[in-house]
């Protein structure tokens, strides 16, 4: 490999295969935002503290600001853009956030929703403690978290009811 050279990677993004050439020092968030135009994922701190950049990789919530682009080869990545349904309708979790007033400035929202989704995909009946633990790495300065926790509870109940 030569310095400055770009390497082609291929991965599944929101259900579709993508191929993109990246620099070795790029992070997944750079690829998503700059190269693939998926600006829903936000950079809030760049150090894995705020969670605004949370995406789901192979079912696990991760901070895309600390995920080397080259490590995503062959993996399945879900971002906020991948949550809408086939008719562009909001998913259950997104709708719950809207209805419960869990969104104010909205900057933390995509990351918060992805963390909630990762939880609800693996736990159908989360306790409040489970929810708070899942969202610990997502900072919000606007809401005080009250309506966010309510939204996740509501989404959990709705998703459980659908099963």
């Amino acid at each position, binding site marked *: *490999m030569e*310095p*400055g050279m770009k390497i082609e990677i291929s991965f599944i993004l929101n259900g579709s295969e993508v191929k993109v050439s990246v*620099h*070795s*020092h*790029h*992070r997944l968030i*750079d690829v998503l935002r700059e190269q693939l135009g998926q600006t829903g994922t936000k950079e809030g701190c*760049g*150090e*894995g*503290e705020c*969670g605004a950049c*949370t995406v789901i990789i192979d079912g*696990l*919530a*991760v*901070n895309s600001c*600390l*995920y*080397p682009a*080259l*490590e995503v*080869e062959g993996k399945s990545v879900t971002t906020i853009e991948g949550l809408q349904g086939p008719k562009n309708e909001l998913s259950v979790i997104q709708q719950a956030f809207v209805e419960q007033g869990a969104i104010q400035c909205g900057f933390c929202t995509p990351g918060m929703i992805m*963390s909630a989704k*990762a*939880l609800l995909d693996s736990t159908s009946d989360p306790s409040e403690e489970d929810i708070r*633990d*899942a969202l*610990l*790495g*997502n900072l919000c300065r606007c809401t005080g978290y009250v309506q966010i926790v309510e939204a996740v509870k509501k989404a959990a109940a709705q998703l459980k009811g659908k099963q």
Partner: protein
Amino acid sequence: MKQFEYYKPLSLKEAWELKKKIPGSLFIAGGTDVLVGIKNNEIHPPALISLRSIPGLNSIDTGEVTRIGALASISDIIQNPELREDFPVLVEAAKSLGSVQIRNVATIGGNLCNCSPCADMALPLLVMEAKVRLQTAKEKREIPIDEFFKGPGESCLASHEILTDILLEPPPKNTKAVFMKKGRVKMDLAVASVAVRLDMEGNKCLKACIAAGSVAPVPLRLSKVETVLEGATLTQKHTVKAQRLAEDNVIPITDIRSTEEYRRKMTGVLVKRAVERALEWSQA
């Protein structure tokens, strides 16, 4: 953004070859410490050699000896049923590390090799008297974990050495071990942390291992405190004495996170509480 090359060797052999070829290159596991260090201009490696694609490094095997691959993620450790059963103190510490997002990517090996005085995974391994396996292309050695940490950010790893496994002997049935951590908020580096392991026979303590974090250049075994408990029939007098001795045998500093006095006091309090909890548990 700092520029660096990024390699994904598929074997340890390839990893060692790359390390030899590129002076100044660093091995990287989950990257949650290394990448932040690069971002903040604390380290400037020309290349990173990722160990994530090397098969076998992240597996967890239980048997006569429990072997945890260095690349096992913190989440893997929390979810492993055998570890939950046999080494709950390790799982407790894992649960306290960072957030879900960090735990899904950070590894036990990475946490150890980062050598922070407050490394959450170090304390349970110290009290369970784990060994770590270190390998180069030429040799393999196993050392007790308390020989691993040399100073803040400094381990005993030779330049081409890779920590590949953490090895744990099954503890006696009467072993109870507790981990406690105090931060400023729930998701935080430890301001003070302890792990306490007691092997009890009724009220008699056969073995005591106590480790403290954030109160010395490295995660520390508090042998003077252990001596007070080992062999004794434990009463409240002992827990109080353990608390005082813990306070006296650590060397914390004042930094932006906390003060020396507070860390000292907290170590004492956490030791006392951890001993009490371990006792309660063993008597249950």
